[in-house]
């Protein structure tokens, strides 16, 4: 285990953890319910750590990416349904990320939104084409570390740490009306979905294969997923807590992502604002790259095409055409003028519906000793894996009714 590689891997995971959906839902959750939803972020982070570690282990030992497993374990038809659902979900998520990037750039430069969206789509395509795989991930992840300003800003505003700590205890606030309870339920499901987005597992496991992981890399996989994602989730929690402290009492339910940047501007002024916007920009741009590549990985793996950014673009032509076309389609969605917040809500909703189908084959294969030998899931991993599978299945069932009953969390 190379310490430098490990540190870079962890820092990349930290900087790449927050995307536009987490940003939006963390800020809205804090302003609407104070610190009462912190535990959902912590709970969902444990879930994504479990499944990311599992998918990295399967990639290192069985050399199988998630979509390959899905086709074999779910069968061609159900596999195809899952592929279609996850492609739609990732595409909407990618469009939300591109829209988010354009919005943030608009706050930074004042240039027209659609022009920025077009320019950024081209820039993201060029960055994937030019950079080696490891540096695609690292460039965005490491630059996303500017987001740390949100954690420092939280410390600077002297929040009530005892209440934040209490927020880690699973709870439903007392005295809520039925409508508010439903909204609380919707936020719980949305945060679960935003933290456990299926694209993260597709990208992480395919990345493990891109980087040629072997069983020797299992410790790196475990440490990166636990420490990197754990620390990354603290940034999301910092945004939620700052929002509870600054926005809730001011009657603000952040309606646009730019409001979240005020959390750093209030204690640190212009430099805080710029660092926050830069952190948001790189973290969200990184998520746009990951969602798009995850989609291309899924399609190529399902149909058995040559895939991977470790190859030259022309050595895997259908894979290359797929990610370029998917970027084009995501930009097309942005061009329709649909609001970024609406895209975020749809992304979260579609993703939670796909989550159980994403994690079931992974759980089955990671527990299969024929493939995984001594690296198969132990008792704890099995128990936690099936527990989280049950939770996300319940969340998937509840998602649509809660969305309609609460008008997408707007009461």
């Amino acid at each position, binding site marked *: 285990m190379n310490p430098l590689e490990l540190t870079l891997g962890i820092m990349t995971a930290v900087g790449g953890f927050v995307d536009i959906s987490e940003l939006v839902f963390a800020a809205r959750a804090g302003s609407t319910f104070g610190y009462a939803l912190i535990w959902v972020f912590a709970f969902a982070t444990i879930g994504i750590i479990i499944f990311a570690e599992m998918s990295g282990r399967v990639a290192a030992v069985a050399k199988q990416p998630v979509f390959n497993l899905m086709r074999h374990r779910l069968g061609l038809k159900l596999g195809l349904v899952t592929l279609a659902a996850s492609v739609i979900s990732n595409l909407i998520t990618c469009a939300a990320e591109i829209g988010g990037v354009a919005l943030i750039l608009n*706050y930074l430069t004042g240039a027209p939104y659609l022009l920025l969206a077009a320019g950024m789509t081209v820039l993201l395509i060029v960055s994937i084409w030019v950079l080696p795989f490891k540096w695609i991930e690292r460039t965005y992840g490491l630059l996303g570390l500017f987001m740390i300003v949100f954690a420092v800003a939280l410390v600077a505003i002297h929040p009530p740490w005892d209440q934040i700590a209490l927020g880690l205890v699973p709870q439903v606030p007392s005295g809520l*009306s039925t409508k508010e309870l439903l909204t609380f339920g919707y936020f719980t499901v949305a945060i679960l979905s935003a933290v456990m987005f299926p694209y993260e597992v597709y990208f992480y496991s395919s990345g493990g294969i891109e980087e040629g992981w072997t069983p020797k890399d299992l410790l790196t996989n475990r440490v990166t997923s636990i420490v990197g994602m754990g620390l990354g989730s603290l940034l999301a929690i910092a945004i939620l807590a700052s929002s509870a402290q600054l926005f809730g009492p001011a009657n*603000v339910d952040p*309606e646009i992502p730019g*409001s979240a940047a*005020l959390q750093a*501007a209030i204690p640190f*002024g212009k430099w805080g*604002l*710029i660092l926050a916007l830069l952190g948001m920009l790189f973290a969200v741009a990184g998520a746009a790259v990951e969602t798009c590549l995850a989609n291309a990985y899924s399609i190529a793996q399902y149909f058995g095409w040559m895939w991977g950014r470790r190859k030259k673009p022309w050595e895997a032509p259908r894979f290359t055409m797929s990610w370029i076309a998917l970027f084009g389609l995501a930009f097309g969605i942005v061009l329709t003028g649909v609001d970024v917040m609406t895209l975020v809500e749809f992304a979260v909703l579609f993703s939670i519906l796909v989550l159980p189908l994403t994690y079931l084959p992974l759980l089955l294969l990671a527990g299969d000793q024929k493939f995984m030998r001594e690296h198969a899931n132990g008792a704890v991993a099995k128990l936690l894996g099936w527990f989280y599978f049950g939770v996300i299945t319940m969340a998937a069932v509840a998602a649509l009714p809660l969305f309609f009953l609460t008008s997408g969390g707007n009461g």
Partner: protein
Amino acid sequence: MGRQYLLLFALLAACTRGPDDDLQYIKQARSIAAEWALVNEQANAGRVNVTYVTAMHGWLRDGLLAASSSLSEPKSDYGAEISALLALPSDAAPATLRSHSESLKLIEDALESA
């Protein structure tokens, strides 16, 4: 028969439109007014740059326009509050914006408890 059901459904749907249906837009407008006040307060204190403030004003106004045009009862008291907000200049005083936000919050609370 099918047409009668369709007519009944349309009538029922029309009956449910009104303040309750507008609640989400009232909430949206209340929050936008409060966000706008916060942005202007920071701008007046020189803590945010002009580009950011101009962009935020544009997006917040777009949000207000969307909320206003979605109202089923634009000639209501909340409709008047939102129209008053839309008539304000971008650099309106934070206190003025907050007073509109608070008026909308009162309407919102009354509708929620009804």
